[in-house]
């Protein structure tokens, strides 16, 4: 999916910081689909997913000056923005209400509608599904629901140390599945 490389990551970052629209266009063309896989691992609804992706790119454009290559790769930074945007969107009141309606209406129906993707087959979610239950739960809560380790300890009643250890083991397991 990667187009012919025109910029190195450093050039791209430098141009984005200079608010170069062409570089931003290039960034979108090259990374939108990859980032969309992250969006889609959170959000089932097509329209909402598109909104989240668009919102994410707005943030990427507006926050480009805050990107620090010392703290990680450009893609990692963008992934983080996408994840936070997705979590924030899912948490927002409007979305929760509409989702509750959907859940009420389709409680026992097949979740996979014609115009929606099966998020279980997308991104990290795909790999999370294969984990054992105790790992799956902690990754779901932490990565997908955006709860802090402290929140999880409080919610589940598990000691913080256990949450921490379990999360780390789960992630190591997840990683080995991603690489496979």
């Amino acid at each position: 999916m990667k187009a012919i490389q025109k910029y190195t990551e450093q050039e791209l970052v430098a141009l984005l910081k200079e608010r170069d629209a062409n570089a931003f266009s290039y960034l979108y063309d090259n990374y939108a689909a990859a980032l969309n896989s992250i969006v889609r691992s959170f959000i089932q609804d097509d329209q909402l997913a598109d909104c989240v992706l668009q919102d994410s790119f707005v943030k990427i454009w507006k926050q480009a000056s805050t990107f620090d290559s010392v703290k990680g790769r450009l893609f990692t930074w963008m992934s983080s923005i996408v994840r936070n945007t997705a979590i924030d969107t899912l948490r927002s009141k409007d979305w929760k209400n509409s989702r509750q309606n959907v859940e009420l209406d389709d409680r026992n129906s097949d979740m996979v509608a014609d115009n929606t993707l099966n998020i279980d087959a997308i991104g990290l979610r795909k790999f999370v599904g294969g984990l054992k239950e105790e790992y799956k739960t902690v990754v779901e809560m932490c990565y997908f629901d955006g709860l802090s380790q402290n929140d999880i300890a409080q919610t589940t009643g598990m000691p913080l140390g256990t949450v921490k250890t379990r999360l780390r083991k789960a992630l190591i397991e997840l990683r080995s599945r991603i690489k496979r």
Partner: protein
Amino acid sequence: MDTREYIQSGIIESYVLGLADAQEAAELERLRTLHPEIEAAIQTFEKELEAAAFANAVPVDSHVKADLFKELELAPQEQPSIPTTLRPESKTNKTSFLKYLAAAAVLLFVVSAAMNVYIYSRYKTVQRENVQLALQRDQLFADNSKTQTKFNELDERLRLIAGPDIIKIPLAGVPGKENSQAIVFWNKSNKDVYLLASSLPKAPKGKQYQLWALMDGQPIDAGVLQDCTTVCKLKNIANAQAFAITLENEGGSPTPNLEQLFVMGKI
């Protein structure tokens, strides 16, 4: 610390996925600057996640990009290579400008060199002319001073012979010497005698013309004609009734050789 154990603890994965808490993140960010292997491990996992995302990419509807750029009020050119084409263009402009500059410099140098050669040859010519002119000037000065001397001499003599006490005695050629002429100027006051040998044949070698004053039939030596150019001053004569010139042996004679009488004139 055991970096290997740290790397394998799951903290890297937790951090990269954004799940580490603030304390864990701060610790890792400190350690990654100290341990290259930790830094490398972080980047490895980042690349794995990136590769996985690209491998699982989900195509996006094209309206999203349009909406995005509309929302941000951005208008990227469809040909983002414009800046890259501009760059070499401006570069060529610069180089071609430098080329012109260099060409102009070379041209200027050639013209300057030619000018130098021309001006040097002109200088040499003028220098030669100047030397010649200086020589001519010196020559003219010399001629002038000679002329001046002669003029002064003539002026002096003219003053003498034009004086009120001067008697002019023309000496005419005797029969057989009709072409010969001379004029004697005699100052009655101071008895000075001047001769203008206006027309006498050139004296042969070993001979000189001698002027005689005649008083009561007696010839009195008035001196030989030296090689004077204009008016010659001769011996003073107290009294005379006539003057005559004869050709005598060099140095003059005590008595005139009448056979060699050339001109004669009475007072």
